[in-house]
């Protein structure tokens, strides 16, 4: 079952009709519907192309949050030949909203860290919808330290609505954990690269995305606050999320213009969820290219370059 977004309703109708025709033909061999069904396919394709050619920022948020979009786990499973998950912050617990461990990209060992949202009710609850608690950031810090110690590059996959706003999370130092994770990102003397695969939600994303290179999938978003949150604060009306999404400049394209994203990874037509394999392969190619980019830099160069990059960010605004 395809999950359609609200703006994809016309598309759902056409694709539904084509599907219905084909189902009827399967039951009744005399019916010749293929021409009609094919015509609907063409129409659906054209509409899909049209819809995705001009996605508004708010629609991009919806695509970025699409439940069928490939998640961290899908990328790890598909892109790495070996994956050894490592758990725990050694202080309080293990946060299932954050995946991480040792992995092999081709022959090359790396440390991979990412937010995982889950893909059905049970796993979403288990993963806390990708909203990390302090233990998740502290696990990431531990893994980054390990990478630094053994000279392994770090690949982070960002996909979170934000850090979890919960009682225990606050008591155990959510702010401190995020601040230390960002600090650790700035300290490691190994290549650190990030792909924003879905939602880059505020501080919860920065804690993993303070990287030498940041790539964003074409329809991913990265923002200081959710459009709904921004709308309820500045417009005093959470239904103004379309306006807020517009104003925040949170699309991969705007962030590329601002220098926050170093590259934009094209998605298959209709978004990563319509052709997961192609999307995953494109992310894999991008990770390889970014790591190759940093290959000849030593630890000090990597740290210096990372600092310089962030210090100079924003000096030109959209005019950059």
């Amino acid at each position, binding site marked *: 079952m395809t999950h359609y977004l609200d703006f994809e309703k016309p598309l759902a109708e056409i694709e539904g009709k084509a599907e219905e025709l084909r189902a009827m033909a399967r039951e009744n061999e005399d019916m010749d519907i293929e021409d009609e069904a094919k015509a609907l396919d063409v129409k659906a394709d054209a509409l899909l192309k049209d819809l995705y050619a001009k996605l508004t920022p708010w629609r991009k948020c919806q695509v970025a949050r699409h439940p069928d979009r490939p998640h961290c786990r899908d990328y790890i499973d598909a892109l790495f030949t070996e994956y050894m998950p490592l758990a725990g912050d050694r202080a309080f617990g293990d946060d299932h909203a954050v995946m991480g461990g040792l992995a092999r990209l081709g022959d090359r060992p790396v440390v991979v860290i990412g937010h995982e949202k889950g893909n059905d009710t049970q796993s979403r609850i288990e993963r806390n919808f990708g909203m990390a608690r302090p233990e998740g950031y502290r696990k990431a810090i531990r893994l980054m330290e390990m990478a630094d110690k053994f000279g392994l590059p770090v690949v982070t996959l960002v996909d979170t609505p934000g*850090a*979890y*706003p*919960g*009682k225990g*999370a*606050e*008591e*155990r*130092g*959510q*702010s*401190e954990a*995020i*601040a*230390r994770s*960002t*600090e650790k*990102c*700035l*300290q490691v003397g190994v290549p650190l690269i990030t792909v924003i695969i879905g939602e880059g939600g*505020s*501080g919860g994303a*920065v*804690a993993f995305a*303070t990287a030498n290179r940041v790539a964003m999938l074409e329809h991913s978003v*990265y*923002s*200081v*606050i959710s459009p709904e949150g*921004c709308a309820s*604060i*500045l*417009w005093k009306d959470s239904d103004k999320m379309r*306006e*807020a999404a517009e*104003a*925040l*400049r*949170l699309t991969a394209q705007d*962030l590329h213009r*601002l220098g*926050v994203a170093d590259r934009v990874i094209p998605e298959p037509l209709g978004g990563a969820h319509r052709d997961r394999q192609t999307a995953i392969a494109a992310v894999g190619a991008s990770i390889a290219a970014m790591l190759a980019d940093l290959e000849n830099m030593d630890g000090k160069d990597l740290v210096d370059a990372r*600092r310089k990059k*962030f*210090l100079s*960010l*924003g*000096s*030109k*605004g*959209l*005019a950059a």
Partner: protein
Amino acid sequence: MNWISNYVRPRINSIFSRRETPENLWSKCDGCGTMLFHREISDNLNVCTSCGHHMHITPRDRFYALFDGGVFNEIAVPEPITDPLQFRDQKRYPDRMKAAQKSTGEKESMLVAAGEIGRTPIIAAAQDFSFMGGSMGMYVGNAIIAAAEEAVKLGRPLVLFSAAGGARMQEGILSLMQMPRTTVAVQMLKEAGLPYIVVLTHPTTGGVTASYAMLGDVQIAEPNALICFAGPRVIEQTIREKLPEGFQRAEYLLEHGMLDRVTDRREMRKELIMLTRMLMQMPPPTWGDLPAPGNETPAK
């Protein structure tokens, strides 16, 4: 680095600020409801003389009270570009800025200064909650970087007073990028072996708490200050339960191991002098009312 001398100004400034708060005006304490003379409040660093409730204090007033003889030199902050995203909500961002500038008399939400406390040379930075909620944008990032660079150049500790509702939404992702930018500033201090002391004041929340405000060598908070990443209302909406009394307040954080100390504003100067001098391996301070430093030009 440009220096704007404040050598002669403290007197004039205090007369000026008194003009805005005439002596015969009363104000009600938010904490206990007692009616207090404005003059009485300002002489007590905006702490209620009846219940000890800490009210808002501007960075400038804080610095007059903090530095020896009320003398400090403002450190110029490189100006970021205006309205980098051409942000519009119900108002234009530049209009919101102008309104904040007019109501506070300040250029932006952070003030950076060099001066001495108990004859201990320091750099201080203070965030102004009354300026657009103290929000962290490019300017605040530049201010903290300028403060750290000046501290490193002069070999002084940095004392930072935080107060903010979080990141400045009108600068979108660029406000978020101040988290790593200010963290780089903190790293400059650490690498130079210089103390970085954070004084968290009411309220310090969001991305500010999750970056420079939580990375101090010593973390002090003013009594009852709200300090959090997610605000209490957001949490109550998420978990659908009432939060306990005092949740996310300074004393609660102290109890949960997130702070070194909770210190009354009236004792803060003394503690900062002791702390900075010990961390800098300087001899014990001489107490008493110190006059302003002599006419020597501050080191550059």
